[in-house]
């Protein structure tokens, strides 16, 4: 990810956005004391996003038993996200920036798509306090994290924050 403000070691802004049900959520609340994998996504229409989201649905089975969170941010309105989420079979949260309030603040506007003005695909592995552990630029599909890389990120964060990582 190009923007220096979103580099590892920096703190990700505690965005406040409506979720797929329309309720307002903050990222820190979504993290809820756990590591958070935060995905910025173009939207439901993009075939690359559809493929990537199907992969995340496979990965959610591990996240749900491993005390880690997932959330997806896109410019789709909440009702579209809710339908997309239901179709995917996702159990994680979608957050809607349909007003495009944070695109430029975060430096994540995909300037090459002037039709949808979406987020540029990017992934951040965050500590519970929203410090950035790692960042991925997914403009090209192969720039996105693999499942194995996400597992490694969650392992590294969990090792640092779980006091009982090494059994007493």
């Amino acid at each position, binding site marked *: 990810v190009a923007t220096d403000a979103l580099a590892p070691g920096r703190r990700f802004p505690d965005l406040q956005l409506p979720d797929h049900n*329309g309720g307002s*959520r903050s990222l820190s609340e979504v993290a809820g004391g756990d590591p958070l994998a935060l995905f910025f996504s173009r939207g439901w229409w993009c075939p690359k996003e559809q493929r990537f989201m199907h992969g995340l649905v496979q990965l959610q089975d591990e996240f*749900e038993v491993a005390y880690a969170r997932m959330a997806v941010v896109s410019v789709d309105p909440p009702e579209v996200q809710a339908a997309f989420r239901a179709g995917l079979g*996702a159990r994680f949260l979608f957050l809607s920036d349909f007003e495009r309030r944070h695109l430029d603040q975060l430096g994540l506007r995909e300037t090459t798509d002037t039709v949808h003005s979406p987020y540029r695909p990017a992934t951040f592995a965050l500590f519970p306090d929203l410090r950035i552990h790692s960042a991925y630029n997914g403009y090209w599909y192969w720039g996105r994290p693999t499942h194995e890389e996400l597992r490694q990120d969650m392992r590294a964060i969990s090792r640092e924050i779980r006091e009982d990582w090494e059994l007493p």
Partner: protein
Amino acid sequence: MTAVSSLVWFDGSRLARGAGSAGRRFRADPRCFDETPIPGCFAHVCALVDEDAALPYDDTLVQQARRDALAWWIPMLGPAYVCVTTLALDAVRFGGAITVARDARAFQSDPFARIFPGTVVPTDLFCEVPAPGGPVVERYSGAAWPGGSFAPRPQRQ
């Protein structure tokens, strides 16, 4: 975590809070009582008064109901949703679940009713709690629902 304020009693037809209330005692998500209660709501109590009616949280029935709650039950309730909590008996046993909504029309679809039958109870006890973000369904020490955090809770009276 065992403070009175996170406890709720169910006698088969009514919910009550406060030590000495009639019925079976459960531990709910304390956040359901943290704020000003919303009057005129309905609780779908999927629990029994029989003390033997319990399953381990790790039971696949319980885990799947929690997954279903995250996947479609809470979204299905839409703006009627107020809060949802499982009902812990101790650190490992699940005694049921309560979904609170502003109307009771969707309660027949409650995934927790597959485990213990549901009873619709008018209630003024519960406040609005953001739905769990998911996909986490696991918690240490029988915390009633996975929306919380490992951070220590403030001491409750």
